[in-house]
């Protein structure tokens, strides 16, 4: 198992897609949040300003963390989901999956190793998000000694981690669909379905929508997502991970 993790780690470390997704999630999204907060504070007019009015609520660290939280809920989900589709789907797309048969390490363990590497990558990216936000916020003049900053950054990190976990099950779609297309289509469909679920008021019970709704709720007087719903989201994600590993243990080539 350890050898499989080392090999999967090497494959992701040397792949441009992992680095590109990490930059998107850990740098672009937080800096976009900083830009949005800055733009909202200028009192500008226009369609973008109107949208930002709904997104940027409050001031100081609350406004920044709340805004970045909403962006992370989408950006992190897409970044992790995209990399998960690549990690699993590419083996089928390039045909290298055949080489994963007739080995002393089972394909189920190889799939688990892939998730272990994805999980570690997502944790690093989530931590980088927090660091970038903190540094960017301080650079824009926010008080580094703010009493609620540590709690706010911890909540943001937790959001990034939970969002990452609910993105992992798209690996099952990439696996069963035997390539990128099914995985990417599933990723896009999840985003669409989540939006519809939120519109109908049941987003909290949809695992893929719950983290984003929770982030929106940080700046709302009402609780949009309960701790139980977040737990359900993570449990559902782990069921998806387990189902993927089980499928890998049993599938045959066509």
């Amino acid at each position, binding site marked *: 198992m350890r050898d*499989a993790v*080392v090999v999967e780690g*090497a*494959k992701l470390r*040397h792949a441009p897609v992992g680095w590109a997704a990490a930059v998107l999630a850990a740098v672009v999204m937080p800096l976009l949040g900083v830009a949005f907060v800055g733009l909202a504070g200028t009192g500008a007019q226009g369609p973008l300003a109107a949208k930002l009015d709904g997104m940027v609520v409050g001031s100081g660290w609350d406004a920044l963390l709340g805004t970045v939280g909403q962006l992370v809920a989408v950006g992190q989900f897409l970044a992790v989901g995209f990399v998960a589709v690549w990690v699993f789907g590419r083996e089928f797309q*390039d045909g290298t999956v*055949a*080489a994963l048969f007739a080995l002393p390490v089972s394909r189920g363990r190889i799939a688990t190793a892939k998730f272990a590497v994805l999980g570690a990558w997502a944790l690093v990216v989530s931590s980088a998000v927090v660091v970038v936000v903190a540094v960017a916020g301080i650079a824009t003049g926010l008080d580094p000694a703010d009493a609620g900053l540590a709690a706010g950054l911890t909540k943001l990190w937790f959001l990034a981690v939970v969002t990452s976990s609910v993105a992992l099950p798209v690996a099952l779609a990439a696996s069963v669909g035997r390539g990128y297309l099914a995985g990417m289509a599933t990723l896009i469909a999840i985003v669409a379905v989540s939006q519809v679920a939120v519109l109908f008021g049941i987003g909290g019970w949809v695992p893929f929508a719950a983290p984003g709704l929770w982030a929106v709720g940080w700046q709302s007087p009402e609780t949009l997502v309960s701790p139980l719903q977040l737990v359900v989201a993570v449990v559902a994600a782990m069921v998806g991970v387990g189902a993927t590993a089980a499928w890998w243990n049993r599938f*045959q080539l066509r």
Partner: protein
Amino acid sequence: MVPPLEALRVRRRWGRHVAVDDLDLAVAAGEVVAVVGLNGAGKTTLMRLLLGMVAPDAGQTRIRGVDVRDASATAWADVGHMVDAACAWPQLTVRQNLEAAARLHGVPPALRAGAVDDAIERLVLGEWADRPMARLSSGNRQRLGLACALVHRPGVIVLDEPSRALDPAGVVAVRRLLRAEAGRGAAILVSSHHLDEIARVADRILVLHRGRWVGRLDPAGEDLERRFFDLVRVADGVERAVDA
């Protein structure tokens, strides 16, 4: 003695097409068995069945006497193959790919570096050792795939067209390599479209046509191509007579 690699009355169909039809096969230790046939004859399907990539509809395939569906990690650690794809990834260099293959095949840590260096030398990949696989020529990718299949010096080797895309020097290198592996006791199954080349490597040449064995070719014989087509034509004639 139990053959290291066996197929026992194995059958597999894809929809209405019977790819492998009631085949028996035994490859002994130290033997090179070649399977030749036209495109779609069932060579790759047979190899996939032997490696557990596809389950048979009937019959059994075995590694050292054990059904491949029940084979242990130890059994699989002694198998090396290149069927459909190499155990290699484009973003990794030659050396990194060999290290990955050595790890996945269970080579102990203390022996890994030596196994990788040995594989690079045997397949003449030294000049490209630090180049990503994506930037190798097709011939060198083939050499890398073979190196990855053999880095752990397996006792059971299954190779689908090992000389594909190789230059003449590569063909000679692979020929010598396979004979050396057989010489140290490995059971080797290869498929090929190049009859003259495979005759220089194989101890036995079996002809597969429409999923069935239709005869053998003598590796020391002459005009193998004509004899191959004679076997295929006879098989087709028999089938037409049966169908009629």
